[in-house]
Each structure stands twice: as structure tokens, then as C-alpha cells.
């Protein structure tokens, strides 16, 4: 059942907006509707217990809700089986899991890994550690002046038969929407294993992992209305079957004897220890919320608000917007105002209750590539409205007045 998309109605589901803030940092973490916090509260107050082990009724309820989210995630990303859906703490842990469990088995001395300069640190550092350990090399695809990946360079790198290609569906710092379908197809044709970082993709445009054709897809619940501490690694079943566990201990085993251990089946082989049960249940409620709205409506709203903000910001004298035109960008606008450091801008915006991000956005190589230390960044989601953009414009003008 698809709801009509009405921002005023949507905002009523988010109690935090009663504080009067203009929240422009959803690429960092989203706000959560009461449906999500309510689902978590219900667990705490009505069936709080550990999953997978107890025989009493409330534990069965907890297990059902926890595993129920897995089916919701499977459906949301169109995976073949819930065995391919691994719960992690977030995108970072998901990528680390692949770098550790798949990488240490498959990346050998002299192998090449292809990344891009757009990547978030979480899609760079685990591979740098792996490459250093295995004696592999990393090549980075550069961007053009609009912040879009140089596809010719990417194709040329693929001709050198990389073992792994990993890139973000959408850039967190510039909002660039990468041509993921084409890139995955080309990388697969070149024989590479492909990981797509969906941290900024899944929440805003969704994904069909089977259509995309990637081997791994990682994303976080907290950027898509869910709580922190619950994220997802999707992996193709045959790859996951062949991988060793990342973390080990309780719950991920079949039998443990003093002589040795047999591991649990997928997906539990990768879920050691007591899990973030309430958070996973919250993520399930977040997916329900997004599914009711429909991802097309989500994307369409974001495009509208992003275009509005792009226009409004571009009109400000001395303001530079980084990245591609609005038609090829997600709900993220990174910018600089001449003579005003992003941190000062964020401090002044904060006085007007405008939450604006300033910094390197965990993408220091990209900042170096752009020749800046930091940018200011406004990012949007389903609840973002034009009034918040107008307030940001007001804060920027106030900053210009102070710094003139």
C-alpha cells in the first residue's frame, strides 16, 4: 500500500522536528520516525529477550521479529534468499567483513584492487590494510571537474584484470550518482569481484541487487530512518558459503568440540554473539516506512528539494557548489562560500538551529583532489522541506554579513 507523499504529514511522524531544527545532515545520519522508535520500544517493553536460544514465548516473538527484518531487507533489495542477508553494525563493518573474510582468502600478492577517489574512508582503509598485508596494489579512478568518475580510465584499469572493484553507488561528499549498472557489468565482464557501497544509495534510490549484478552490497540502517548499530551486508550465496567467519564465538556455530568447531549455516555463520536485536527490529520498521512511501516517490521528492536548493544556493554571490548538476546528483550539496571557512559557516548556521555539516565528510582523498580542506554540506531526505533550505540561505547571508 503506497501512501501519498506529503512532507507535512511525513514530518508529523518525526518528533524531533518539534524542536524547531532545520535538519540538513541526513547523509550523515537520518532522523527516525516514531514508528521505528516505537517498534524498538515494543521489543524492550513487551518481548525483551535473547534470540535463537530460549524456548519461551517472548523469545520466540523476539526471534520472529529479528528474522522478520531479514525478509524485509531481502525484499527491499530484491536478493534471492535471506541467506544472503547478513546483519552488521553498519556499512563499515560490512565492508570490513568482506575485506577480512573474502579478501584474505582471495587477494594474493601482485593482485590489483580498483577503487575511486570518491570513496568514503570506509571503502578505502579496509582495502589499504588488506593490500599492504597481501602485497596487492590499489588503483583509484579519478573524477572530472563535475565530480563524475572518468569512465575511460575505469575501463582502462579493468583491462589490467583487477581482482576486486569496489565503489559507492552515490558519493556521500558530492552526491554524484555513479552509473553503477554499467560499472558493475563492465567489472564483471573483466572478471572482477564487485562490491558496491550502498550507504548513500539504498536509503535514497533503493537497489535491486540482482539487476545490479554485484557480488557484495553494503549499507547502513541509520541513514534510512533506522537506528544506529544495524546495517546489512548482501553477498551472493556461493561467495558467502566459501568464506570463513569474520567474528567467531556464540551463535555462529553448529557444534563446538575441544578438537574443533563446525560453523552455522548462512546467514548466521557471520553473526557471532548477541546481536543488536532492538536495532534490527527498528530497521525492519524503517524499511516498512520507506516501502509504504515507495522508493520512486522518495527519489522524486529528493530530486525536487535538491533542485530547489541547488538553484537557491547557486544564486548566492561567492558561493561555489561542488559536483554534478542536480539531474545527476542525489540529495547532497557540498559547497564553499568565499572567505568563510565551512566550520564558521556551520557555527553561524547552528545559531539559527540549522544543522549543517562542515568537514571532510570522511573523504579526505576527495577533498585533496578538489584542493580544499573541507566543504560545507547540506543533505536531504524524505522529510526535508523548502523552508529548511530558505533558512540555510538566511544563515549563509548572515555569515556573509559578519565576515564581509
Amino acid at each position, binding site marked *: 500500500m503506497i501512501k501519498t507523499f506529503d512532507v507535512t504529514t511525513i514530518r508529523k511522524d518525526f518528533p524531533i522536528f518539534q524542536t524547531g531544527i532545520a535538519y540538513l545532515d541526513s547523509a550523515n545520519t537520518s532522523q527516525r520516525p516514531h514508528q521505528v522508535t516505537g517498534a524498538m520500544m515494543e521489543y524492550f517493553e513487551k518481548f525483551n529477550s535473547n534470540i535463537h536460544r530460549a524456548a519461551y514465548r517472548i523469545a520466540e516473538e523476539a526471534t520472529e521479529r529479528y528474522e522478520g527484518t531479514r525478509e524485509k531487507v531481502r525484499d527491499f533489495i530484491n536478493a534471492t534468499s535471506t541467506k544472503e542477508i547478513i546483519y552488521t553494525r553498519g556499512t563499515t563493518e560490512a565492508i570490513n567483513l568482506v575485506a577480512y573474510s573474502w579478501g584474505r582468502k582471495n587477494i594474493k600478492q601482485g593482485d590489483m584492487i580498483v577503487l575511486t577517489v570518491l570513496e568514503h574512508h570506509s571503502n578505502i582503509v579496509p582495502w589499504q590494510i588488506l593490500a599492504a598485508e597481501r602485497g596487492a596494489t590499489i588503483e583509484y579512478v579519478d573524477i572530472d571537474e563535475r565530480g563524475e568518475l572518468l569512465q575511460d580510465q575505469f575501463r582502462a584499469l579493468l583491462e589490467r584484470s583487477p581482482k576486486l572493484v569496489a565503489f559507492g553507488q552515490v558519493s556521500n561528499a558530492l552526491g554524484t550518482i555513479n552509473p553503477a549498472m554499467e560499472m558493475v557489468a563492465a567489472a564483471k565482464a573483466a572478471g572482477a569481484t564487485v562490491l558496491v557501497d550502498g550507504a548513500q544509495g539504498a536509503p535514497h534510490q533503493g537497489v535491486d541487487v540482482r539487476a545490479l549484478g554485484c557480488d557484495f552490497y553494503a549499507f547502513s540502517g541509520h541513514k534510512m530512518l533506522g537506528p544506529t548499530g544495524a546495517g546489512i551486508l548482501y553477498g551472493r550465496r556461493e561467495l558467502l558459503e566459501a568464506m570463513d567467519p569474520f567474528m567467531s564465538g556464540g551463535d555462529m556455530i553448529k557444534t563446538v568440540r575441544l578438537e574443533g568447531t563446525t560453523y552455522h549455516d548462512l546467514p548466521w555463520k557471520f553473526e557471532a554473539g548477541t546481536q543488536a536485536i532492538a536495532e534490527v527490529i527498528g530497521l525492519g520498521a524503517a524499511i516498512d516506512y520507506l516501502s509504504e512511501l515507495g522508493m520512486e516517490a522518495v527519489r522524486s521528492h529528493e530530486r525536487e528539494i535538491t533542485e530547489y536548493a541547488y538553484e537557491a544556493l547557486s544564486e548566492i554571490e561567492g558561493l561555489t557548489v561542488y559536483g554534478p548538476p542536480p539531474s545527476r546528483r542525489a540529495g547532497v550539496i557540498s559547497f564553499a562560500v568565499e572567505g568563510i571557512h565551512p*566550520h*564558521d559557516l556551520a557555527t*553561524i548556521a547552528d545559531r539559527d538551529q540549522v544543522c549543517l555539516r562542515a568537514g571532510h565528510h570522511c573523504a579526505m582523498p576527495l577533498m585533496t583532489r578538489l584542493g580544499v580542506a573541507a566543504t560545507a554540506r547540506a543533505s536531504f531526505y524524505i522529510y526535508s522541506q523548502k523552508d529548511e533550505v530558505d533558512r540555510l540561505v538566511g544563515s549563509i547571508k548572515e555569515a556573509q554579513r*559578519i*565576515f564581509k
Partner: protein
Amino acid sequence: MSSAADDQFYREYILDHYKNPRNFGRLENPDISHEEDNPLCGDVIGMDFRVKEGVIEDVRFHGRGCAISQASASLLTERLKGLPLEDAKKINKADVLGELGIDISPARIKCALLSLKVLKVGAYGLAGDAMDEEE
């Protein structure tokens, strides 16, 4: 709406030091030269010192950053010029924050103290970690 002149945070003298930083640039053949960055934002401040008979004869700072880090560095160099090293060693966080004369939020404290870190780590070999613990 307040006017720029009576802004409680971006005070006139802070903005003046930001826009017209004192002792900005490099020294040729400095006796001491050190650079530190703020890992949160990538801002960098470096300082060059010329020391003669235990006195800081000349000092320059360079780098990039926000109004708070730049003004703080500019103010610090004014204070350091002509100061005996032994006295410079005694400059602490309270002195630097006092000189800035504004309420610094926890989010911006590292901006305000970046130049002091350059002084302490560079000139006196005090480990950066020790300074973090001091906070």
C-alpha cells in the same frame, strides 16, 4: 538581528585577526619549524621560530583554517614575539582561550588550541597525546 560589530562570537578583533593575520608567512632558515593538523577538519597550522639567546626573536605562522584557528594563531604569535622561551613554555590553554575572549563550544575547542599545540609539540617536544590528555 545583531550587527557584526557586537556579535558575541565573531567579534570585531577575531575577524580582524582572521582577515589580516599578524606574522603570517614563513621564515627563512628557522631554528624551529613545526606543523600540526586538526584531523577533524583537515585544517593545518605551522609555525617557524627564530630563537636567539633563549628569546623568540621572530615567529611566523602559516596554514589554513577557520576564523577561530587563524585568529588564535595570530594572537599567539603576537604574544610570542620577544618572549623568552622559558616564558613561552608556560603559556597554557586558559591563556589562549582567555586571549580569544569568547565562549568556545566543545566542537570548536580544537580549532582554538591548534596553534598552541604547534607551539608545544614543535618547540618543546611535548607529545601531542600529552596535550590531548590535558584537555
